[in-house]
């Protein structure tokens, strides 16, 4: 019998080869290194700097020591910034209110967003191919609009005397609320009316993004699965609930994570529409960070708040990954 064993070619013991040629590795390095450097300078380093600042009483207009301006008039205070979050001071109260506002906003936006975008995606998918593109474009337009412009326009819509919304409501005989954005006493089921108004404006701008993602996901579901459900006697609702929706779980995970991530970091629409009012009822954590860092020159406190926000977002994302995990694919 012939010896069919092949001699080893340059394979060292205990070392795995990547299977790529030198030229390919060079191309990958060349493509990745600039991105890595970019991430290092503009993402990782600022995060590390913010983490460090959280342990200092730091203001950029104070002269610190020669070590990056830390120390000196910007002293190290350990965990004092984090302890102060539980105090009875005005900044601590505003911080705790901002935490509640941020969670309230994110936890309301997500289900409302899904309740609108998923059925709408199914509807858009059911129309003629020639019209699908038009609907997608129309619904996506708000997403590519400037957040500031959207906030200003919705501010006009909500204006108590000259606003479009109140004018329409009065025309149909409905008495509108006194003020959509500035009445601190207008609270419905524990949610301030100003917050509801901002949520409506935000979802109007944002739902197009999730819509196109769901449309793409729906197009990715094999037609044979729908046909099989039909053959088994499923009606439209059963097909959607028991066939389509479970198959969208990976997409749902993606959409939920992205929506929550962006909801936790919303700033522009709050600042332009309500500036955090009335009575801090619409002050989110990001606004609190911005005001403390750049208006009140209290960067150490702002950095500590940003660390708290980071941990919150990380925890919420981990929970979503766990709840919506799948161990299959199609």
């Amino acid at each position, binding site marked *: 019998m012939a010896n069919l064993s092949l001699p080893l070619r340059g394979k060292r013991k205990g070392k795995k080869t990547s299977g790529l040629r030198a030229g390919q590795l060079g191309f990958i390095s060349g493509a990745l290194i600039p991105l890595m450097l970019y991430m*290092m300078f503009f993402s990782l380093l600022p995060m590390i700097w913010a983490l460090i600042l959280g342990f200092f009483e730091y203001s*950029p207009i104070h002269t610190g020591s020669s070590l990056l301006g830390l120390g000196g008039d910007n002293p190290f205070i350990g965990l004092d910034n984090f302890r102060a979050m539980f105090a009875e001071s005005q900044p601590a109260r505003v911080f705790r209110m901002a935490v509640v506002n941020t969670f309230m906003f994110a936890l309301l936006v997500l289900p409302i967003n899904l309740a609108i975008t998923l059925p709408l995606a199914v509807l858009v998918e059911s129309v003629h191919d020639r019209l699908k593109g038009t609907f997608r474009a129309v619904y996506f337009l708000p997403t590519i609009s400037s957040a500031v412009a959207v906030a200003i326009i919705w501010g006009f819509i909500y204006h*108590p005397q000259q606003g479009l919304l109140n004018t329409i409501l009065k025309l149909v005989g409905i008495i509108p609320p006194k003020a959509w954005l500035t009445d*601190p006493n207008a609270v419905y089921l524990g949610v301030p009316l100003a917050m509801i108004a901002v949520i409506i404006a935000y979802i109007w701008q944002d739902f197009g993004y999730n819509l196109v993602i769901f449309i793409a996901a729906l197009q990715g579901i094999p037609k044979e699965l729908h046909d099989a459900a039909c053959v088994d006697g499923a009606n439209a609702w059963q097909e959607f609930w028991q066939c389509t929706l479970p198959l969208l779980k990976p997409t749902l995970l993606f959409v939920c994570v992205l929506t929550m991530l962006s909801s936790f970091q919303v700033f522009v629409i709050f600042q332009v529409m309500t500036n955090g009012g009335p009575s801090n009822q619409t002050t989110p954590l990001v606004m609190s960070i911005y005001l403390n860092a750049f208006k009140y020159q209290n960067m150490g406190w702002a950095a500590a708040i940003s660390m708290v926000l980071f941990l919150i977002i990380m925890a919420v994302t981990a929970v979503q990954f766990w709840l919506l995990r799948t161990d299959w694919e199609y």
Partner: protein
Amino acid sequence: MKRTLFGWLLVFAILISACASGGGGGGAPAPTEQVAEKVTLRLWSHQNAAFQKANEAIIAKFTAQNPNIEIKYENFPYDQYIQTIQTAMAAKNEADVIELFGTWTCSYANGGRLAEVPADVMTYDQAQQIYFKAPLDGYYCGGKLYGLPQEFNLENGGSLVNPALFEKHGVTYPPQWKTFADLIADAQKMTEFEGDKMMTAGFSAVTGDGVSFTFLAGILQSGGKYFAEDGKHFNFDTPEARQTIQMMVDWAQKYKVVDPVLFNDTENPVSTSFFTGNMAVGFVGSWAAGEGSIEYPDMKFDYVQIPPYFGPEHKYAADSGWGKVVSVNTKHPAEAWKLAKFMAGEQDGSLTWNIETKTIPAMKALVENPEELLAAAPFIEATFGLLPYGQYIGDVTERDQLFYEIIYPAILEAMQGATTVDDAAKKINTEANAMVDAKQ
């Protein structure tokens, strides 16, 4: 081998970034150059069409007289201006001459970021002869002068008035108010409702600045003071403070000349609501008249003096105003102070600036001979009688936080009926002093 290469590249990247200055660069252009005798100075201001035009006009005059000095003038959106200054200062990359608001100056000066005005440029004693006290003292920190004011920022004692609404409701125009009660009586006649919703406010001062300055002025006019004995902490829980808060609550709840839910800093602020015809008398600084005359050229309005709230005298606290300071890091201090003095310390430069910006002069001489200024901004004349009565607001630690996070929200809640006058005064006192303690 390739993993090792990647590893070294990563280490190299970290080392490179660690060598970068902390706090980020200011993104500003390269520092000043010195080519033989030529000196280049950088000047910063915030973006405002009138302010930019004013500075450019003065720069042109300065460079004509000083051909060896080149001025690079840069301006930034207002919302980003403070951040730009702070990040640049941390990187020691700020401009040589900076247009800074007086009330901010001591924060920067006490942090070691600003240069003291040299004695050969101007001493404080000399400055007291030239400028009104209120704007000047914003630049006077710890016994040293750190800048030269150009503007008397007056947010007290004057209001915009809409003659059309006066005429519509049969109210005497021009107003002949002898007391503040007369103003309120007229305002009541001009307030318009649609059902129970206020459509036109008779009189509104419900803004962050309006409420806060009214609060301080009311305390002073009642014979009180708002600083505690140590001159650093506050004493806002006084009968004078409560009387002033009660006055503002009465505007909303007793006299109903303003609905603070519908007219406040977020919805219908004075500077826009007045010019859209939703307000008969709007309490705001004269700067709003200047802006309004540009943005609403068809709107007929006037700017008039209003009576004091309590007593016969117009006592009030003023916020200093915009002026010029020099960075402690400038490589050309002599030239920088020459420019700052030309812009803010000499009559020609100051007059040019006040005419273009339509602001009240910080310089006494310009008020004593106001013909040129009044030709450009006639509405400023209503404020002249108030100028000698102003005192500088003082070292309030963190002005924006005190006004917009502490005083305004507490008094707004009282005006909206969500809290009592006593609770509002106590809350302001507690939070203001906590702010002082936190900054020490």
